[in-house]
């Protein structure tokens, strides 16, 4: 009961500081726009290059079967995977790179990882313009299942935010995390249905990979956008429960530790 009350308080605090969350997100977007020539173009360019590379591999070298044309399959996978991975990549450094704010001004520290996630959400929105173009090109019609997309996105957001909080915090205490993260995220990508359908991995390994919530979430995105059907109820519900638990636990841990951040930066 006290956990719930505390969670309530944490959410209220975020509501109170919503303007700051907005300003911090705006800051990072503005900076990217000012510091780079391509600006938001990078949000399209990165998944596009990856898609091109893997399209060559999986349509010319080692042919694989996908429910929709491979470039579409891969681009959709990359778009949502990149949202997840970049959110975490920015979050890992979010507290340590803003150390002057952490040690000198008080506000809820959650703002840092949260704004990192929001910045990547904007990238996702920009990238989805190209996804719509590709869908049009390959003649994929939009189905009513698309109305379920907000639910899928909310679950993905919860999972990403939960991990973002944990990673940001742990990198503050142990700077090894940012290196470990780079290794971990690569392994994770290939354990997820980003560039190939993970179902095609058989045996024990296949069973193990099926436990990865990210596979369920990326597949759910493809389902509602490309396949025109709702995600498989059982696995998706399981992934949703895991995501909410991760957010809940991650936020609680972060919130309890945040008072000590200024001393540990």
């Amino acid at each position: 009961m006290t956990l719930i009350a505390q969670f309530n308080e944490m959410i209220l605090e975020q509501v109170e500081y919503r303007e700051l969350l907005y300003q911090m997100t705006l800051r990072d977007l503005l900076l990217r726009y000012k510091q780079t020539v391509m600006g938001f173009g990078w949000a399209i360019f990165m998944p596009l290059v990856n898609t091109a590379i893997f399209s060559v591999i999986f349509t010319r070298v080692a042919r694989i079967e996908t429910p929709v044309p491979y470039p579409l399959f891969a681009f959709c996978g990359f778009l949502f995977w990149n949202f997840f991975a970049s959110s975490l990549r920015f979050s890992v450094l979010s507290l340590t790179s803003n150390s002057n704010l952490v040690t000198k001004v008080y506000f809820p520290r959650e703002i840092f990882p949260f704004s990192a996630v929001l910045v990547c959400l904007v990238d996702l929105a920009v990238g989805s313009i190209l996804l719509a173009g590709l869908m049009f090109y390959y003649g994929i019609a939009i189905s009513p299942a698309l109305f379920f997309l907000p639910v899928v996105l909310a679950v993905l957001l919860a999972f990403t935010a939960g991990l973002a909080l944990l990673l940001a915090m742990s990198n503050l205490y142990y700077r090894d995390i940012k290196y470990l993260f780079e290794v971990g995220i690569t392994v994770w990508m290939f354990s997820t249905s980003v560039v190939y359908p993970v179902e095609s991995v058989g045996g024990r390994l296949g069973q193990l990979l099926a436990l990865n919530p990210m596979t369920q979430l990326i597949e759910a995105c493809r389902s509602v956008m490309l396949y025109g059907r709702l995600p498989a109820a059982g696995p998706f519900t399981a992934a949703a429960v895991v995501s909410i638990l991760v957010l809940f636990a991650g936020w609680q841990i972060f919130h309890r530790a945040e008072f000590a951040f200024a001393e540990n930066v």
Partner: protein
Amino acid sequence: MSRPAVVFDGVWKKFRRGERHDSLRDLIPAATARLLGRSRPSRDDLTEKEFWAVHDVSFEVGAGEALGIIGPNGAGKSTILKLLCRILRPTRGACEVRGRAGALIEVAAGFHPDLTGRENVFLQGAIMGMKRAEIARKFDEIVQFAGVGEFIDTPVKRYSSGMNARLGFAIAAHLDPDVLLIDEVLSVGDAAFQDRCVARMRELIARGIPIVFISHNLPAILELCSRAIVVDHGTVKFDGSPAAAIQEYQLVPWTTAAGTNTAVSVAPIRIARTELLNHRDESSAVFQTGGALRVRVKYEAPEPVRSASITIDIHRGDGVYCAGVNSLMDKYDLGILSGTGHVDLMIPRLNLLPGCYLISVGILDNTVGRTYDLHNRAYPFSIMSDRRDLGVIYLEREWTHQTHAAAATRRNLVAAGKDE
């Protein structure tokens, strides 16, 4: 009566000395040690690497009160302020600030060099807890206060450090806080900007907003604060009027500060206390321009001392040396100083203009020119007056005016008479 706006109740804060290692390599031995049952030391104990940065400090600041905190470097002043702003959490005890706390600590901490002044105003404003509409409303005022003018759309990295600090302070000054916390910000900017800052602080004090003010600028403490505490080694050494706190601070030979007390180690005579007395012979820290000031130097001389002289200096708060007198130069023979006693310097008309001043008192040995004892800038006082003179001293004066018109007319008449 409502509760005070700032409550600092028996606060302790522990810090670690030495380096803390941030890699997993150090986690593993530490975690195994913990698992093996060597429990973590409790909150109240110190391990060898820890120390109390704040050691059982309590104070309250109510509405309309301005609390000054003074003390040598490393005494824990800034830690106290960080605890008040919730950047740090106390190890023990409670600290509470009610309402929106405006902290003038690192006023430009949130600035990003690549963003323009305008973008940074909105960002920094949000960091300080202002709403967007509120910032937009005060935007022109902030820019004007900062005096950055046409550079508002230039990236902050092109600003001079003074402009940077001024813009930061301007945002903070427009926060409309319920409580204002200030840490040594008056050192930024030029004299005109500092005057504007002090004026802004006075305005907030006048509105009854509680203020906690940390500064090494003792005259500013004397001028702005209604109460002051002296902090050393994390504990409160004194709590009282600003004038008394400054005396206390200046007289104790702080171990961390470079000795303000430059007297010889074993002196045959020392200054016990100095009192500033007004025309009614009452001890005071406020005097009038043209009023009387009696400086009473009480001494203790375990051995009889011949040929000593007393020096009294007056400095204005900003360091201007206003006056220095010495009994030897005045050819006043103190005679033999023995046991206890006091020497008075009577100034019948103290012709200083309004401001804060500090008196230094020294006892010198005339034979070899050494200092027996010195209380350097230890006795603060302020001068009140309704005079509008500028400068340091009040000149006794009179104006006269004599027109030369009558003489000229006569000359004209004489000249005209010659013509006729």
